[in-house]
């Protein structure tokens, strides 16, 4: 069914005069808004309904003409609205009028939740940044290593207890291979030291963040999966006092400038002299508390001067690692332990639980 053109004309003419009349009477901002909604409302506005009813029933050849009249009507509405707004603007901005728009500002804000950085990632990034500022580049390596990189080239003797399957997770069926080729899950990030030295002559400064695994029973402070940040610095004239100064600086950067460090002789196959490093207890500031077993000190990392035997392994591929000419130090620390201290985490297992309640606290 189609409507004659004259009917359409009449309809539009009536609407146009209605618009003019109504607009002229608008006296308040509220009335203007109602007028706007009445005509231009997106869902129930009269223009919307009009366009649907007219276009649905119009013949194709009429559509163009109807469209033009319709657009003229819409332009009129918009123009009248503008005039009325201009006229009523003063009342629109009056206190009395704005009061109606009052909101309760104590209602909770609408926040967009941001995802949290995992505390392990966060701590590793923090450590990496501290050493980057001292000139260390980041080194990484595989988690599945050969016995050579994990043990042999790190100067572990053949019968060393760490090489036992009691302590190390090994890939199935490796007994048939030569010992040095056997695949295992690295037990420390130290293999990356050797891989780096094989790739580049001294000087070397690298910091190695990474995941390691041991065949350990899980408890509150032990996990078969954990993370380490290891460092290696090799150059001419690197000394034990440089090692001390570097780690003292790093611990102050990590825990605050009032933290003190203390070095103890220790033993690692790949360093000599070797040391354990304690920091003054960050909980009791050295007075003695439960966390530091009343000693005022907390053991945090292991380190030492790179053993000449390790340089000898590196020198097989990079002759510049001659222990008579260069020297270096290495250090390693457990990321979980540091994160647990920094954030007061009691159970190491929480790091790997994916528990939203735990993770979102780091957002």
């Amino acid at each position: 069914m189609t409507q004659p053109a004259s009917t359409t004309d009449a309809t539009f003419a009536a609407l146009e005069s209605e618009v003019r009349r109504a607009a002229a009477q608008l006296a308040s901002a509220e009335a203007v808004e109602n007028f706007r909604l009445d005509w231009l409302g997106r869902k129930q506005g009269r223009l919307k309904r009009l366009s649907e009813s007219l276009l649905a029933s119009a013949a194709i050849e009429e559509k163009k003409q109807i469209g033009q009249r319709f657009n003229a009507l819409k332009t009129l509405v918009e123009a009248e609205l503008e005039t009325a707004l201009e006229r009523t603007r003063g009342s629109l901005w009056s206190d009395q009028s704005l009061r109606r728009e009052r909101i309760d500002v104590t209602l909770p804000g609408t926040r967009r939740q941001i995802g949290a950085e995992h505390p392990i990632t966060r701590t590793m990034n923090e450590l990496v940044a501290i050493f980057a500022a001292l000139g260390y580049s980041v080194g990484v390596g595989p988690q599945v290593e050969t016995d050579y990189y994990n043990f042999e080239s790190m100067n572990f003797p053949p019968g060393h207890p760490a090489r036992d399957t009691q302590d190390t997770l090994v890939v199935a069926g490796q007994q048939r291979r030569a010992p040095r080729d056997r695949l295992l899950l690295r037990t420390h990030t130290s293999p990356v030291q050797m891989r780096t030295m094989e790739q580049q002559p001294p000087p070397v400064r690298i910091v190695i963040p990474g995941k390691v695994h041991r065949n350990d029973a899980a408890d509150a402070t032990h996990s078969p999966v954990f993370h380490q940040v290891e460092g290696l610095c090799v150059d001419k004239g690197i000394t034990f006092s440089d090692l001390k100064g570097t780690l003292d600086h790093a611990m102050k950067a990590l825990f605050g400038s009032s933290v003190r460090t203390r070095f103890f002789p220790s033993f690692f196959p790949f360093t000599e002299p070797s040391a354990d490093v304690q920091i003054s207890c960050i909980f009791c500031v050295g007075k003695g508390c439960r966390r530091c077993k009343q000693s005022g000190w907390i053991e945090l990392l292991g380190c030492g001067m790179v053993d000449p035997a390790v340089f000898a392994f590196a020198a097989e591929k990079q002759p510049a690692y001659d222990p008579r000419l260069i020297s270096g130090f290495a250090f390693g620390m457990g990321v979980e332990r540091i994160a647990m201290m920094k954030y007061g985490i009691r159970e190491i297992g929480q790091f790997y639980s994916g528990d939203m309640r735990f993770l979102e606290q780091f957002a």
Partner: protein
Amino acid sequence: MNILTTWLRALLPELTVTDAQLGEDLTLRGIAVEGIHDLGSGNGSLFEMDITTNRVDAMNHYGVAREAATIYGLTLAPGAAPLPAAHPAAAPFPVRIEAEDACGRFTARVLRQIKIAPTSSVNGPISSFASRMFTLLEQKQISNAVDASNFAWLAMGQPTHAFDLDKIHGGIVVRRARKGETLKTLDGVERALDPEDLIVADHAKPLALAGVMGGWETMITPATTNVLVEAAWFDPVAVRRTARRHGLHTDASHRFERGADFAAAPLASAIVSALLLENGGHCEGDLVDLQIPAIAARTANRPPVALALAQVHRLLGQTHDSEGIATATVESILSGLGCGLVPQTESGTGEAWLVTLPSWRLDLEREIDLIEEIARVHGYNRFANTLPAFSGAVAARPGAAAESLLRFTLRAAGVHEAIGSTFCSADDAALTEPQPRAAVPLENPLSAEAGLLRPSLIPSMLAMLGGNLHRDIADVRLFELGTVFADASPRSASAGRAAEQLIERVEESLSLAIGLAGSVAEDGLVAALELDFFHLKGIVEQLVACFAAQSVLFDTFPSDCALTPAWLHPFRSARLSVNGLTLGWLGELHPREAAARKFRSRVLVAELAVDRLLTLPLRRPALRELSHFQPVRRDFSLLVPGRLCWADLDRAIAALGIPEILDWRLREILATGPGIPADHQALLVSITFQAADRTLRDDELQAFTAAILAATERLGIRLRASGTQ
């Protein structure tokens, strides 16, 4: 291991520091005192020691006293008083070492007319001291024979053994066991001996597992009157092998395995003998002492090591006190430790020495070992804190920026980072099929459920999602950026994956898993919106948008071609491919898996191969000139037949290549409504037009509209209604 300060003070009569100070000074020099227990007035303290495995020489009272003597510059009392004169023997007791590779030294002393009795009932200076030490250590006293050996052990860490002399046939032979020989050891176990076992035998039979455990038959009993005291040096490897083979771990084997003091045997023998003799009896003949020179040459008589002061300074650096490590410091520390120093006078090289090494310090072999000793005894904390000079640049790790951008984008989308287990079960691995490569099994997994290195992050992601959902945490948004593992050993094409094939190479790749459940972050008064496929897809699209890619495609495969991973709902999942390369999968968890895991809410999971993503360069923003002219938006309500998908329409608009089309968006989907035929849906699409250099005219817009409608028409899409707004 426990150490008594009373005993230390007996060995160091000039020691004046308090027990607490002694404990601290030892600890700072690597002889760690973990705990100090006061034993009451006059009894001193008990030190709980934690000594590193390389310092087996210090795991006894004499060894700790030697450290203290070095620290304070004191003189160590002799370890044993001289024994009373021996009765002459017709001939030395016959001892023969056949296993010259494994027994470096064997001493034998004959004691006659011995009376076996409890140590506490014996009167004599040594036995009463021993008795008191045992009491303070809360060590059970058994008899003077057993206790004598224990006393020598606690004093010096040197194992000894006493045989009932009258049960020995002929003399002693140290040799390897013969096939078929057996030995009943002191623990009462009858053992078949292996031809590799190192034994102490007489002329007829095995008497003891050398360095591990004595034999039952020659055991000292209350009836014993004549005793042969053995103190020897056995090779670490030989002892370790024998002990392992028989499943034994004794104090003696522990020490020999770590290297005993070649020179200690006579002194230990004297201590044991003196204790026994305090209850009567006498020595017969001199100590029989056989030594193998080749072994002495690599233990007690190692060649001296050259040490240069310049090397000490080069490696240790600055000390707090300005004079640093002086010549006198080096000499006093090393001689205190038992080294001999011969100054070298070659010109031009500065101070240097040839240093002989103490027999008890097998861990000292090289110059660096001596430098470590100097640092250790001088005190690590007396060295200054210096920072080495640095010139050079810090190199960025490849991929680090991209990884950090991925993490940032995920966090901005409200997803938390998680770290899951590295391991998975065989069932888990099957879930991630089809995988191009096999999962890597472990020889000694932590548990049966953790037998494989994960080939995918999905199992650990599902476990973490489950952990939350089962705790009634409804809204879960997690990601893990982690390593996955695959067996990448070269395989012959026909071999397949046979169980016995050797794993030669393991490939590690960086993967990203995303797991979502529940609703879009519900906060404030905004209504909760249940997460669906498109939220996940949106996150994935944003991640991919970090990179410069020519083509990004989400597609699906017929369910019967088994390409979609088993963890995914076959009709609510998609593959992501970028530049024609499969990059990952995303979608709803398969309802079968959801049911098996008792998930009651919809779970969405994705896994992307980040390594492949990282081969793409990061997208650099390419700026478009901003137009000064008004954009115009036109809305189209389109009737789309059910056989088509959005991508068809999307591509059709893109293919028009009209530069004035600024943007087009899907605004609304209506499945039913007036004028929507069956098997169709109405899509409201708004298209924005803008030209850089002019205001668009009506006729131009009409031409664009016509072109768009013509293109959609060719797909079978009709206009439902159009309007302007």
